[in-house]
């Protein structure tokens, strides 16, 4: 029979440097316990009561913290997370209540919550992933960590798009895909410039192939190409604002 520590009460216990890799600590009461430098890699801490728990320097790679209960006294200073750590639906005890600034978020490219959730997974699972990213982004933004928050929000949009496809909402999926392609949901604005240049060049190419203006056949190919780009730009209302015709 698998062991479970669901009803185990370890409130205030001293577990510094404890080797708890892969431990099933689901629902365990660890309020005010000391888990400094403890190794909790791959541990199941879902539903765990971690109010006031000291987890400084704890190793939480691959740990499952979903629905764990934390509060402003919970200390995660320099805890180690990675892309397999699951953080969905954590009860944080308020927005920005816990200092997350000392965690090396560059090690967390994605949340572990999305692992095992494929396109074929139920919609509820897809939504859990989206929710996890948004929740983390909210916590991080409250502490001024906007770059990390933006990264997670971008990831949430991508996962949301997948959820839309799973739901069969093709229209919303295509619109979301268009937004991703053109601007990366606002987080990859360089794409809109690329798209703009491509549109101008495509129409310039079409204009060039159509023969251009009467009499332009006498011009060099280079001149014809420049004229085509000019005409394409003039047709663009945004370009007209910048370069009014006749100016």
């Amino acid at each position, binding site marked *: 029979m698998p062991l479970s520590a*669901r009803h185990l009460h370890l409130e205030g216990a001293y577990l510094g440097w404890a080797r708890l890799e892969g431990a099933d600590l689901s629902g365990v009461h660890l309020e005010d316990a000391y888990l400094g430098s403890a190794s909790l890699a791959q541990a199941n801490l879902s539903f765990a009561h971690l109010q006031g728990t000291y987890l400084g320097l704890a190793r939480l790679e691959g740990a499952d913290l979903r629905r764990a209960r934390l509060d402003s006294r919970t200390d995660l200073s320099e805890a180690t997370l990675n892309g397999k750590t699951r953080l969905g639906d954590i009860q944080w005890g308020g927005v920005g209540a816990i200092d997350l600034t000392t965690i090396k978020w560059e090690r967390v490219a994605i949340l572990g919550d999305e692992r095992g959730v494929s396109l074929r997974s139920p919609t509820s699972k897809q939504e859990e992933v989206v929710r996890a990213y948004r929740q983390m982004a909210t916590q991080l933004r409250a502490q001024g960590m906007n770059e990390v928050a933006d990264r997670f929000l971008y990831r949430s949009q991508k996962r949301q798009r997948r959820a839309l496809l799973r739901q069969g909402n093709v229209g919303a999926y295509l619109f979301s895909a268009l937004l991703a392609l053109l601007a990366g949901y606002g987080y990859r604005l360089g794409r809109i410039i690329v798209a703009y240049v491509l549109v101008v060049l495509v129409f310039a190419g079409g204009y060039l192939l159509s023969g251009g203006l009467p009499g332009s056949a006498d011009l060099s190919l280079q001149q014809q190409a420049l004229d085509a780009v000019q005409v394409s730009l003039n047709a663009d209302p945004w370009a007209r604002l910048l370069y009014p015709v006749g100016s």
Partner: protein
Amino acid sequence: MSEEQAATESPRPHPESTGIHWGDSISMERQQELQGYLDRWEAESDHGERKGPFDTQRMEERPLTSQGVIKDRNTERLNMTGADVCWLAGLFAPSDYSTRTLS
């Protein structure tokens, strides 16, 4: 110890030996010690400031001896290992165990 010897050694102790990792067994003496904490917790009518049977970090806040001497925190603190927690989890696992783990 040579590198070759180190490489051939198992990273986990023999099941019958004691260890400090989750899943390792603990000695009978240690089991009795931990059981003592649980028994004392059950027997106490007033737990004082302590929040649980293993909350030894707060022992200095209340008199524990018959002479009313407040014991020092460092001498009373129980350092628990992963093996201790695993053993305790086995005690607390309900017979009608059903997983609540998230899939």
